[in-house]
């Protein structure tokens, strides 16, 4: 019987890995229609030959997720600014929409995102890294990404004293990625599990549900949700 009262909302690297693998398996079995999370093992030093058992470090990955579709306003704007489109409309009736152009506009407007969940040894919590790009591979700028964030998050951004999303180097890929700042994570994880009036759970239960609970909160910030099945399971 563990004492959860003293728990500070953090998780060890070992428990993170166990929880991440469990989360990925559960996601795959309950959401076969949705792209799967996968565990990517990473040796601490890429140039050091790594034994199978040493590959305990790594991150959780969900990639190529479409995060936006154009609305009518976007289509109109594209039509108005496209010279080709203007020429086409001259030769046709004013209220007639060219299907081919519409499809093309849709294609160019699609934005995609890669999500990585990496363990932070500093904060001892999972951290969400993301990279957003167009269908042609061009990376999105921060203000373009902010447009894709759920409205509630975007509205909160200007009011925040400290930006909660910044571009930083991916710990394993060594490339610029966007990172959601994790300094408040342990506090809200603690509240999630210990803040209620209900009886406090055992520590094993807490650690088992840690990543699922973390994702249900953090995922909303970037427009990812957990299907009902996973929340109901257990």
């Amino acid at each position, binding site marked *: 019987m563990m004492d959860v009262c*003293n728990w500070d909302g953090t998780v060890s690297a070992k428990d993170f890995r166990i929880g991440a693998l469990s989360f990925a398996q559960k996601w795959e079995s309950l959401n076969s229609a949705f792209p799967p999370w996968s565990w990517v093992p990473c040796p601490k030093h890429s140039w050091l*030959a790594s034994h199978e058992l*040493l590959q*305990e470090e790594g991150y959780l990955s969900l990639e190529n997720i479409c995060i936006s579709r154009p609305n009518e306003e976007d289509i109109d704007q594209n039509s108005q600014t496209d010279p080709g489109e203007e020429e086409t409309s001259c030769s046709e009736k004013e209220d007639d929409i060219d299907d081919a152009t519409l499809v093309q506009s849709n294609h160019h407007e699609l934005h995609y995102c890669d999500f990585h969940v990496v363990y932070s040894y*500093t*904060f001892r919590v999972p951290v969400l890294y993301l990279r957003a790009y167009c269908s042609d591979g061009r990376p999105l700028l921060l203000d373009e990404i902010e447009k894709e964030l759920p409205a509630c998050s975007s509205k909160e951004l200007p009011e925040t004293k400290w930006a909660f999303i910044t*571009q*930083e180097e991916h710990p394993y890929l*060594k490339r*610029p990625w966007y990172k959601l700042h994790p300094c408040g994570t342990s506090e809200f994880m603690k509240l999630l599990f210990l803040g209620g009036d209900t009886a406090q759970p055992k520590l094993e239960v807490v650690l088992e549900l840690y990543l699922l609970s973390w994702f249900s909160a953090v995922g909303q910030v970037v427009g990812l949700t957990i299907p009902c099945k996973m929340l109901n399971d257990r």
Partner: protein
Amino acid sequence: MRKALQKRMEAQKYVWEGAIPLQIHLHESQVTTLPPPPPALILAPRIGYLPLLVPLIKPHFRSTLPPGVDTIWFEYRGLPLKWYIPTGVLFDLLCAEPERPWNITVHFRGYPGNVLIPCDGEDSVKWSFINSLKEAAYIINGNCKNVMNMSQSDQLELWHSVMNGNLEAYLRVSSKLKLATIEDEYTSLCSSKSQQGSGETDFTGQVKTGRVPVRLYVWGLSEDFDDLEDISQVDSWEKISYVNRPVEIHKEGKCFTLHDAMKNLLPEFFSDESLSDSKLAGVDFEDVQKIPSEDVSSNKVVEDRGQNAYEHREACYISSSAEIKLIRIQGIEPKLEIPFSWLVNNLLNPDHFLHICVCVKVPQ
């Protein structure tokens, strides 16, 4: 006791006054005059950051630049320099044999956005620094509220003290952050000799255990070498492993050395001692099992140690020919037996991280 504090101030002063002589060349693709402009000679603070030198560099090369928007970045022999790493750390890491002056190239066009994080001048550097400080505060105190709640004027004063190399102003403002320091084993040893009875009382705010903010830059070489001059050049950041991981110090009666810290951070390179570590880990497990009511923190510590012990056993088979060849902190190559607390108290960067450069030899 003033002597001890003065000694620490002395070492910190040397660190803060440390500088790298730079010879900065303009990249040939941006030279529009004949003859090409002479290089800019600048003494760059070790604890500073390259983009902060732009106000000195830009006037020097202005007359020869092609028209267009400036996106300034630096490069050393083809390797883009990460501006968010302190200048002294870049020098220690990339110049195995210290090169004086250090010849680097400045570009005003063609920013390599796929490798380097964007930099919009001084503000980007400032926020990068403050984020590091926030992270350090979390490691030490368990939260970063003191950094988050800094007043605007304190924030500005702190940043200006770093930009201007003003140690006294920095100490005045940073003391408000209440970052606990570790008892300096070397200093306390000296003081206990001179004043036998009052050693402990005078170190208020210091703790004997805790987490130390450390950033490790590990350069792996597959070739063996005896002279630093024989080492080939770092041509890619893929060759360098960046480890952002705190060191936990536990007072267990004996002195915690740099050797202990490195074993904690790079267990693969201490395979000869993995057997004794396994024994220690075993003892820890036994101790925990005897405790009637276990609390979360001790269990966590045991888990981490158990994991390390397991790694150590496997490390025997993997890296028997891997070894640490060089360790540099603030340009100093300290002995492994030096008390880690001395290094922490004297060689920290202003972001409160100990930046350690390590060169290791690894098998092919």
